[in-house]
């Protein structure tokens, strides 16, 4: 039987026999089910994925009726990464009018709340112009990015210098101080942009600095929800489980470290999120079928647990998309189709 052409997690091409494809799907599913303590794929799922990968189509799409909302985090910044130096508002109109985006997101080049604080008045003006030139919901997005609160960029000692020295108590205290600083900045910036008319907000790449980063996002969200009861905030994650850099931080009585997407979403809901963006990391040493089976298991469990809309993250190195600057359309479209159709997603 002819071999099935697909890719590795680093984007390089690979050919699998049907038996190898099935084995990778089973192994990826088992890995996620074991780690997350959630159900693996069933026989219908395996058949769906086998057929999806066996197709010779360069590009695939969801069946009619299965379309979902498409949103883009950091949209205004991504042109610059490809050396297309368009002004941010022009980029937003391109996303809306040419790329079929259902929401558009304005973000500053640093894409972190802290550096926006001193220039929030400039951002407010840009946002207001954006609201006048676009029709779809305009979201303001950035990361909590607790790393910016450590010396020399911020006031706190760097836990990653303290921890290797065995100074665990000091490192934990530094993380706790960073949480306070970050909450204050997020509440200030998001509040300012909300009062300028932003339709929604994205606390993005939450957890990039570990459990303290997640706690800061949730606490900021609580404060914002209390101050602005109708505010719409999406929480987008950084990784599939929350790294325990502090290890003992809790939210709503639950230890944050080690939580997987189906557990993260419940706490995001509790904090006041209206959309949740789970992440599953791509393993570059494994094939895309292995990665996709694994991703479907995690995202489906998250979607089932959620009471709010779930928009899975798809992009470089997440959502079974290879770690390449330009995601190959063959596996990107397959991963998108499978996540939407197997995981009952609300958006990507």
């Amino acid at each position, binding site marked *: 039987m002819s071999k099935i052409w697909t890719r590795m997690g680093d*984007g390089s091409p690979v050919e699998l026999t049907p038996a190898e494809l099935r084995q990778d799907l089973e192994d990826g599913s088992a890995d996620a089910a074991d780690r997350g303590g959630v159900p693996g794929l069933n026989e219908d799922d395996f058949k769906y994925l086998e057929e999806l990968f066996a197709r010779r189509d360069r590009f695939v799409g969801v069946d009619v009726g299965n379309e979902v909302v498409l949103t883009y985090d950091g949209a205004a910044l991504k042109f610059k990464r490809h050396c297309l130096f368009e002004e941010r508002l022009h980029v937003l109109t391109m996303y809306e009018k040419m790329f079929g985006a259902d929401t558009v997101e304005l973000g500053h080049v640093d894409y972190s709340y802290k550096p926006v604080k001193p220039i929030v008045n400039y951002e407010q003006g840009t946002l207001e112009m954006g609201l006048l030139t676009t029709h779809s919901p305009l979201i303001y997005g950035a990361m909590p990015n607790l*790393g910016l609160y450590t010396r020399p960029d911020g006031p706190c000692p760097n836990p990653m210098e303290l921890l290797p020295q065995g100074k665990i108590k000091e490192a934990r205290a530094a993380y706790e101080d960073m949480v306070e600083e970050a909450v204050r900045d997020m509440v200030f910036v998001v509040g300012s942009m909300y009062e300028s008319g932003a339709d929604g907000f994205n606390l993005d790449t939450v957890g990039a600095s570990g459990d303290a980063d997640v706690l800061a996002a949730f606490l900021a969200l609580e404060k914002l929800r209390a101050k602005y009861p109708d505010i719409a905030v999406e929480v987008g994650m950084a990784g599939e*489980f929350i790294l*325990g*850099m502090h290890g003992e931080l809790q939210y709503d009585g639950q230890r944050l470290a080690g939580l997987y997407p189906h557990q993260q979403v419940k706490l995001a809901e509790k904090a006041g999120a209206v959309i949740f963006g789970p992440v599953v990391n791509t393993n570059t040493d494994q094939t895309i079928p292995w990665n996709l089976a694994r991703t479907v298991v995690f995202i489906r469990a998250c979607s089932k647990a959620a009471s709010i809309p779930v928009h899975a993250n798809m992009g*470089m190195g997440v959502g079974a998309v290879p770690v390449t600057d330009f995601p190959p359309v063959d596996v990107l479209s397959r991963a998108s189709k499978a996540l939407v159709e197997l995981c009952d997603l609300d958006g990507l």
Partner: protein
Amino acid sequence: MSELFVQAKQAILATDKEKALEAAKRHLDAGGEPLEIISRGFVPGITEVGEQFGRGTLFLPELIMAAEAMMAVTDLLSAAMAAKGGSVSASPSGSILAATVKGDVHDIGKGIAIAMFKANGYAVHDLGRDVEVDEIINGAEKHGVRVIATSALLTTTMSEQKKLEETLKKAKLRDKYVTLVAGAPVTQRWATRIGADIYAENAHIGVVRVGEKL
């Protein structure tokens, strides 16, 4: 005796330095071979610590504490071997120099990797973040390490890892070191392309591959 191996393993899993040292001392007092309790007790313990960290069921502070317990017992057992006239070290051969490359300030992954290497008995010299290639090579020469490990989180800073390979070659130092590359955008394909010896998908794999290479 096997009870002591279990105690040794459990002490590392519980990140309990005192209990780990107690197990090592009792083993030595009973006339046991130092390497036996390392291979049958402490190493299985630290291996499981690494696996649990990778699964998100054990966290960085515990990993650091397990590393400290491991270092304490390897020091004790190495000294016992030396006293017996043995030439075999309880620690893996070779030390490691770690740095985040120039232009990149992301050091969480490097910090995790350092903890994991220390937990497995390696001596690690950490040059920090945003480090020039020349500084990395000077550091490697100064500390006499076997492995140079670099981390890059950005596609724009990965090129520093290539620069390191080229600079080592120009200085005729390339064969002296094992180079390891890691970081979110780094892949096996990149490592192969630039000529690095090891690509580590995560900290645990880094420890395994360095062990194989040395």
